[in-house]
């Protein structure tokens, strides 16, 4: 078992608690940086896709896992980010400007959506955001001069200072870099007053107010930030898709985003990454499984959504804290090996307010 001897307060503020963490995260960083040397084109593309999911996941996690507000409308932010970015590119705006502009636009839309959401929590908020998603989808389908309507629009290739980022290797590094920055920003947020205000609102609104936290402003900030991260992911996603059409962003996308943070583990940024890996690579795993398994299993229609659903149900029953929660328990068990108390996690309440009796 590791005992961390703290000798100054900076140790509680720093991102890494001890050298062990520095070593393992450094190793991970090295591994993902060197991955293009080993992996072929196809898997690089798949990993870039996982990173894009993770960027969107950071946004969803800030709102759902840290502020306790459930949204079923995040596919709309993904779509708005993608379309805004693609439209700006077609207008001749350079890539390095168009990404932040699309992100800022998403933050603005998120703020506006957050305003009516101030009085709603739980299932009511989920339905309201679902309605927003439908409205956004309708606008995208019908605003043909900008979005191309049902015919869709082609996304210009990403170029930075005359250098094309279209190949699998540059795009991999682009996604990885932006994911790194997103995680860094989210970690910073969570160790400063803004992030703690989110957590306060999640755990007790009355208490948060009596601590001087402005509920309305905090919730709107959470919505805006969440939309910004998701929109940022959307702008990258547009390049992966290559050709935007309304059916790329549906309610199912929103549900997948929510599923990602629940499976990964609510209330942890590591959970975002686990969830993104799960969501991004599972379809591939299923596709491989189809070839290996006997034909009559591989050809069952609806195998993929079925397996997704099954895994979600199993998680909700056996591990509501997600992959990250399970990992924390395993680590604690290893730490305290013969002395682990089975009841350690028995009394914890759920993160999502929908699951609470009020």
């Amino acid at each position, binding site marked *: 078992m590791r005992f961390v001897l703290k000798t100054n307060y900076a140790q509680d503020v720093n991102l890494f608690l001890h050298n062990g963490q520095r070593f393992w995260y450094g190793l991970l960083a090295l591994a993902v940086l060197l991955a293009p040397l080993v992996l072929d084109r196809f898997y690089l593309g798949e990993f870039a896709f996982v990173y894009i999911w993770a960027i969107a996941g950071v946004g969803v996690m800030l709102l759902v896992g840290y502020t306790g507000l459930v949204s079923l409308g995040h596919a709309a932010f993904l779509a708005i980010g993608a379309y805004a970015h693609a439209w700006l590119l077609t207008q001749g705006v350079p890539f390095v400007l168009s990404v932040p502009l699309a992100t800022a636009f998403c933050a603005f839309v998120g703020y506006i959506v957050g305003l009516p959401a101030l009085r709603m929590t739980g299932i009511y908020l989920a339905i309201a955001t679902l309605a927003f998603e439908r409205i956004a989808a309708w606008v995208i389908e019908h605003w043909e001069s900008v979005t191309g309507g049902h015919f869709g629009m082609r996304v210009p290739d990403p170029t930075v200072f005359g250098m094309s980022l279209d190949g699998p290797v540059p795009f991999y590094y682009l996604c990885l870099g932006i994911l790194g920055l997103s995680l860094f920003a989210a970690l910073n947020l969570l160790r400063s007053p803004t992030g703690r205000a989110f957590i306060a609102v999640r755990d*007790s609104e009355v208490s948060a107010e009596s*601590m001087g*936290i402005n509920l309305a402003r905090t919730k709107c900030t959470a919505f805006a930030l969440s939309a910004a991260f998701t929109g940022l992911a959307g702008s990258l996603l547009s390049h992966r898709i290559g050709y935007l059409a309304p059916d790329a962003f549906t309610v199912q996308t929103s549900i997948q985003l929510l599923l990602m943070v629940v499976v990964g583990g609510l209330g942890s940024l590591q959970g975002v990454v686990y969830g993104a890996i799960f969501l991004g690579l599972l379809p591939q795993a299923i596709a491989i499984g189809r070839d290996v398994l006997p034909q009559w299993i591989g050809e069952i229609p609806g195998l993929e959504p079925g397996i997704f659903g099954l895994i979600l149900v199993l998680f909700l029953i056996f591990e509501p804290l997600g992959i990250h929660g399970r990992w924390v328990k395993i680590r604690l068990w290893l730490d305290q090996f013969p002395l682990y108390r089975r009841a350690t996690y028995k009394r*914890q309440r759920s993160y999502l307010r929908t699951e609470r009796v009020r």
Partner: protein
Amino acid sequence: MSLFEAHDLSVSFGGIKAVRDVSFSVEPGEVFSIIGPNGAGKTTIFNLVSRFYETDSGTMTFDGVDITGAPPHRIAELGIARTFQNTELFEHETVLTNLLIAHHVHRRTNLVTDLLFLPGARRQELDFRRQVEDVIDLLDLQSYREQPIGALPYGARKMVEIARALCLEPRLLLLDEPSSGLNPEETEDLSFWIEDIVADLGITVAMVEHDMNLVATVSDRVMAMADGAALATGDPTEIQNHPDVLRAYLGD
């Protein structure tokens, strides 16, 4: 001048008049207790002061500022902190994070500096961290520092809540039944801590309490209530022997 003044406060829920024309004042540096049978409207008064309930009539001033219409988060910014009857802590977080959240009113950073964690944000975090440690020292919470609230016994949660309120560095501290759920030993410790808070930190305390022993030990003045109305205000022994108060508790 009084630190806090309430003038003719009234509030009703449907047909029930929870608080009827209650006036009182809290002087700087004193411990002011509100007692009364269950349902007398004691906690309701605290919720009016915290601005969780809208007053039907009457006014409240804190340090000369009218707070009758202030939004709830403004109350903490002005310097009034409170605890809750059944503890309202941030369940999933550690004691340390709970106390850090209470520093929100003292924040000097904004969203952008927080996102980038600029040197100013780091300095602020270190300052907060140091100030939290002073409160932990004062209330002897060292052994709980890194524990999540969910793993704490009830008595410790009560103390963490008081610690969290102190982290706001308030001028007026509202304690809603601080001794409920504590054993006699913990209650005795509490009375020492309340005296320390007033004497060392210079914080004025107003509390709702049932334990007459605690009230008599620490209070300078006591207000007795029944059925939403104030019966009498005075020093503890005076109130304990007041005929109206005895009638409210024991009947005719």
